[in-house]
């Protein structure tokens, strides 16, 4: 047993390096002098990079670790790559965020908690035991509560943190209750065990339905799906921009990964024959995907319709990210490998465009001290490069060619039509049209309005321009040359223990 555990550590090196980085960063925060706090960010960056390298080195493995607690498989690897990229970009962002840099004293904790959050997400994407899943979600949530309240001098930051904790505690409670019902029905906390117990004989359908709804509440909270989204706008507005960007991409990615794995592993019926290749069926006619379809429609519609009325850029992007969660939920509904692959592709694309949009908002806030949409008036003339980049990100978020966002949407809708979910595809397409309105509203303010007040040019340091370009270029390139990404995503739909 002990030998086996030690052997398991080999597949667990990325997580171990993150855990070590977390501890080292905490200690370093206490030792390093105040004016040398950049050292900790370098430390966090190196630690995350090492974890990323190990993820890539062990990319081809597919095995279960620590007596079935978590797995390391292509599906988890893909999400780990996305999450690692996101953390690296966020650590770089943090160097240039005036909000974060003001709080020199707590820098060590900031980076340490960022790394701990990455660790929680790594565990989320691999968890195959309900106990492990809850712990991983809790680790991610706890770190996000703390980090949203990081700039505690700002009242809205503390408010964000408090609201986040209250909603988070409620949804965790609901999810645990649902899991306890599921355990009562199946007698297993292992997802494969749950699947076997459900496949062995029919259980009370109503109890199963209630359990699933309660568990979806937990996932829905993490991916900010309607009606579990109430925290999102306030937290996104109050938290430091870097954390908002991190929550909107990485946290959501981990939430989707754990949700897809939970539903697929627990409720797949592997005995159904005659399905087209790449499709799967759910057990005993338990159509959990209909629940997700309702969630998807509500999420994208509400997200888009409310975003239209927002004047604060962070709130606007918050509702836009709710809408994007809705689009991605459509990929989960179809019960096919194509749908999952579409979600994976969408996440890679979403990573660049959404982080890019938040980065632009952060740079503007650094310079102008405002996140209000009116302060963007005439920005096109004052900061041409920044504004152009922002236009690229917004076009991509709206899903228009030739940007990466178009490719993401294309694969999603293709998967939907392939599985004959036409009505859902229509609603998704209509939503994209609505979203165009509020994205263009910002673009119009930047280019077609005269600046209010100061009209001086806004200059950016070289390093910030480099990061900006590092986000713009993939957004454009992935819109034109997306073959490798699609291949990677298609190869990554394989989950351990499933055909």
């Amino acid at each position, binding site marked *: *047993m*002990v030998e086996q*555990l030690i052997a398991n550590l080999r597949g667990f090196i990325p997580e171990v390096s993150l*855990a070590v980085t*977390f501890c080292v960063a*905490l200690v370093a925060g206490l030792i390093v002098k105040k004016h040398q706090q950049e050292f900790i960010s370098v430390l966090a960056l190196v630690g995350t990079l090492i974890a990323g390298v190990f993820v890539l080195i062990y990319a081809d493995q597919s095995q279960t*670790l*620590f*007596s079935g*607690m*978590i797995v390391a498989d292509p599906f988890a690897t893909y999400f780990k790559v996305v999450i690692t990229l996101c953390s690296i970009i966020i650590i770089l962002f943090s160097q240039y965020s005036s909000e974060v840099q003001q709080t020199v*004293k*707590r820098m060590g*904790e900031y980076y*340490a*908690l960022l790394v*701990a959050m990455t*660790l929680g997400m790594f*565990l989320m994407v691999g968890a195959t*035991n309900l*106990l*492990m899943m809850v*712990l*991983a979600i*809790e*680790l991610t949530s*706890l*770190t996000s*509560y*703390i980090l949203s*309240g*990081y700039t*505690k*001098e700002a009242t809205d930051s503390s408010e964000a*943190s408090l609201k986040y904790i209250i909603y988070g505690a409620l949804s965790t409670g609901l999810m645990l209750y649902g899991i306890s*019902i599921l355990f*009562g*029905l*199946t*007698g297993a906390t292992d997802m494969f065990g749950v699947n076997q*117990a459900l496949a062995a004989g029919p*259980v*009370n359908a*109503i*109890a199963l339905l*209630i359990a699933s709804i309660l568990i979806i509440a937990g996932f829905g909270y993490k991916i900010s799906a309607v009606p579990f989204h109430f925290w999102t706008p306030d937290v996104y507005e109050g938290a430091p921009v870097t954390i908002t960007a991190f929550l909107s991409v990485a946290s959501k990615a981990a939430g989707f990964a754990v949700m897809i794995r939970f539903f697929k592993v627990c409720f797949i019926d592997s005995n159904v024959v005659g399905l087209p290749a790449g499709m799967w069926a759910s057990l005993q006619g338990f159509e959990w995907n209909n629940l997700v379809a309702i969630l998807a429609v509500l999420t994208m519609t509400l997200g888009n319709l409310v975003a239209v009325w927002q004047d604060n850029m962070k709130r606007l992007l918050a509702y836009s990210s709710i809408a994007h969660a809705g689009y991605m939920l459509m990929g989960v509904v179809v019960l096919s490998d194509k749908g999952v692959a579409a979600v994976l592709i969408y996440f890679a694309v979403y990573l660049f465009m959404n982080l890019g949009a938040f980065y632009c908002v952060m740079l503007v806030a650094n310079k102008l001290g405002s996140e209000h949409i009116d302060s963007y008036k005439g920005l096109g003339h004052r900061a041409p490069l920044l504004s152009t980049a922002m236009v690229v990100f917004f076009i991509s978020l709206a899903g228009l060619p030739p940007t990466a966002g178009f490719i993401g949407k294309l694969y999603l809708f293709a998967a939907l039509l392939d599985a004959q979910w036409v009505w859902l595809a229509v609603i998704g397409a209509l939503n994209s049209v609505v979203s165009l309105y509020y994205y263009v509203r910002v673009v119009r303010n930047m280019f077609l309005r005269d600046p209010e007040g100061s009209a001086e040019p806004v200059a950016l340091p070289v390093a910030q321009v480099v990061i900006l370009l590092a986000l713009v270029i993939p957004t454009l390139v992935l819109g034109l040359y997306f073959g490798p990404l699609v291949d990677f995503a298609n190869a990554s739909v394989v989950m351990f223990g499933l055909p």
Partner: protein
Amino acid sequence: MDLFTIIFYAFALLALGAGSVVVFSKNIVHAAFALLFAFFAVAGLYVLLMADFLAITQLLIYVGGILVLVIFGVMLTNTVISVDVKTGTVQSMPAVLLSAALAGMLVGMFWSTDWKVTTQQTLPEATGNELGTMLLTSYVLPFEIASVVLLVALVGAAMIARREKKA
């Protein structure tokens, strides 16, 4: 009704009763003391389930440790004792309807479901040994990750509570 069942219901009632005092009491000291009984009753339920180690842990850590700390915290904080907890109720009618519907649904579900019942008839003598082995073998990963979660919580609490000099 045998003795076992009677004791079970006694503890369950105590847990529920004390729990509702925690939720509904406007005086935070009363709530803290009621929590003591709720934890104690849960420890009793663990004993009935033959989970001896868990019951002792519950008593030692929750009743003996955490709760005493909570009560000390409450009593030493003047402002907490003298101020009534702000509780306001809005939209009580829809809330009552929704809760009643939910409660009805859940009770109905618990009544009508065939729960998975273990067929194992022999109960273990003592669970401590087995629990310890499992925590360090099959459940070693959750065990270790729980420590990371606690460390994060500690760091976060310290960070939020620390007083900062105005720059």
